[in-house]
């Protein structure tokens, strides 16, 4: 079943085009990471998916039109749009009461269970909590909702590395179960590499790359080239080249692994390296692989 289906999704603010003809197809059961530089249109695209902003083009989320049916859609979709959106006046117990009151798929016991692992007090107001605690509270609320689609826009922004690690572990172990779909955007790319099943790069409102992680791993290879093999390696048309400690590291797209192994040490690149290679020099702009 398809979780998100978009055709020529477009959104402009005045003369600024934030999302420029996005085609999106997200199957249920995957964890999709959307990576892009600031202002690439990630948040705008997610806002359209969540029914927070009107758009042009076709968009169906879990079979519904998000702009027309946001309130119905939110029965099946949970999202953390930003870590700092919980109202500062609300008490933890009131937040639990309210979500339990309005959301038929909210499991209060589960949320209490998540909170029990933290030091958050029920009687505290959000304004009295630290930034990390607010994020923990928000995620406890969201993860206790039996949603089919979870959208996380920079869920760990401003949180320390311990908490970020714990967050993604918890997401995988306590929440994800192959029937749900998770869409996440983040700048901390390296932390989600092992979490994702699918990957998408967005730049200037367009998809630059869209592939599964298996595809990513088989398709892109990074070689730390022996100096004497450099000319030979360059003749294979790497999509990116960088220098680390005097050695050249070349990034290849769809080049045979055996062939590369003769040139130096071959490994799977990090998402961050591929991102820099593709967005940094626009080498692969517009060349997203069909899925």
């Amino acid at each position, binding site marked *: 079943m398809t979780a998100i289906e978009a055709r020529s999704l477009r959104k402009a603010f005045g003369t600024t085009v934030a999302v420029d003809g996005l085609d999106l197809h997200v199957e249920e059961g995957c964890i999709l990471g959307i990576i892009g530089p600031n202002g690439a249109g990630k948040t705008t695209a997610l806002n359209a998916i969540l029914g927070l902003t009107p758009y042009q083009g076709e968009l169906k989320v879990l079979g519904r039109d998000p702009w027309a049916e946001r309130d119905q859609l939110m029965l099946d979709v949970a999202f953390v749009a930003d870590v700092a959106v919980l109202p500062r006046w609300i008490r933890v117990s009131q937040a639990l009461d309210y979500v339990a009151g309005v959301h038929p798929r909210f499991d209060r016991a*589960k949320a209490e269970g998540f909170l029990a692992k933290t030091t958050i007090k029920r009687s505290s107001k959000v304004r009295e909590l630290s930034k990390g605690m607010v994020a923990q509270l928000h995620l406890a609320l969201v993860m206790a909702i039996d949603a089919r689609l979870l959208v996380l826009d920079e869920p760990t922004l401003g949180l320390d590395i311990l908490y970020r690690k714990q967050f993604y572990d918890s997401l995988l172990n306590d929440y994800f179960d192959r029937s749900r779909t998770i869409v996440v955007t983040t700048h901390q790319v390296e932390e989600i590499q092992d979490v994702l099943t699918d990957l998408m790069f967005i730049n200037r409102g367009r998809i630059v790359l869209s592939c599964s992680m298996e595809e990513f791993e088989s398709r892109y290879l990074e070689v730390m080239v022996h100096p004497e093999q450099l000319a030979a390696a360059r003749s294979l048309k790497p999509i990116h080249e960088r220098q680390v400690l005097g050695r050249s590291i070349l990034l290849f797209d769809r080049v045979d692994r055996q062939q590369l192994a003769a040139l130096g040490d071959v490994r799977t690149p990090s998402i961050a390296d591929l991102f820099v290679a593709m967005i940094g020099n626009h080498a692969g702009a517009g060349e997203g692989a069909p899925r």
Partner: protein
Amino acid sequence: MTTPSNAAPAPLGSQPIAPTALSTTRPLYWSVRRELWENRSIYIAPLAVAAIGILGFLISLIHLPRTIRELGTTGPVHQHSMGPMNQHATLAMPYAHVAWLIVLTAFIVGVFYSLDALYGERRDRSILFWKSLPVSDLTIVLSKASIPLVVLPLLVFAIIVITQLFMLLLSAAVLQISGVGTATLWAQLPLFQMQIVWLYGLIAVALWYAPIYGWLLLVSGWARRTTFLWAVLPLVAIVVLEKIAFNSSHFANLLKYRFIGWFMQAITLDTHGGPPIDPHFLPLTQLTPGKFLSSPGLWVGLVFASIFLAAAVRLRRYREPI
């Protein structure tokens, strides 16, 4: 409510569909409670004013035994010169004053609440959290409109009743202790009747002012800052423009009628040749619900209120955090 999270997703169509009544009234109920959590001034301000009123009344009770003695022991001649209305007035005036103070406070609270209702959630970005829940914009706007239109009037009425009963008990206690007796108090203070008039008045004012609150909510959903100025200045501008351009004041009269019109429609001071009436203590015969309900001003106002609220619902759908 507690669906096991790791159960396989039910095939589409077999998921339990909440009855319509449940899915509309429950979010509304919780959203109204939410407003009371956030805006505690809704009940704290009228309660505080009531407490201050009771304190002032308590101090004034020093004179009560003397007043009662004068009312109770004076001969028929004196009583006639004073008139039954004046007797009512002497005894009942503090009760009416406290009630007026509470109502005025609630009106101010309602105005500022409405101006902030759809503005504050955009300013602190919490609208993104509220919109992540399956509650429609209509439900949210209705829950916010219900505060000045339903919650505040009922709350004010309850506070008035309790405050006045408390004042009555205090008076009775003072009279008992000073040995004057409470017979005159019971005879001359038409408290129950006053309270029915207050309830009627509060409902009438809420209905009559609905477009005012609707307008304030609309502005609070639209303005990016200074909601109060946006709510007031355009109206002032129209009044001034009309005065300068046409030397007329139709719009000003319209506004004036919106503020005081309920008084003309819902009650009458005409006693058909009887003795004049103090508007503080209306007998039930002076209430004119028929006239009020058939006055075009009420229904035109309610139509405008609906238009403003519908626009506010639409705005909330489009508006993003400021």
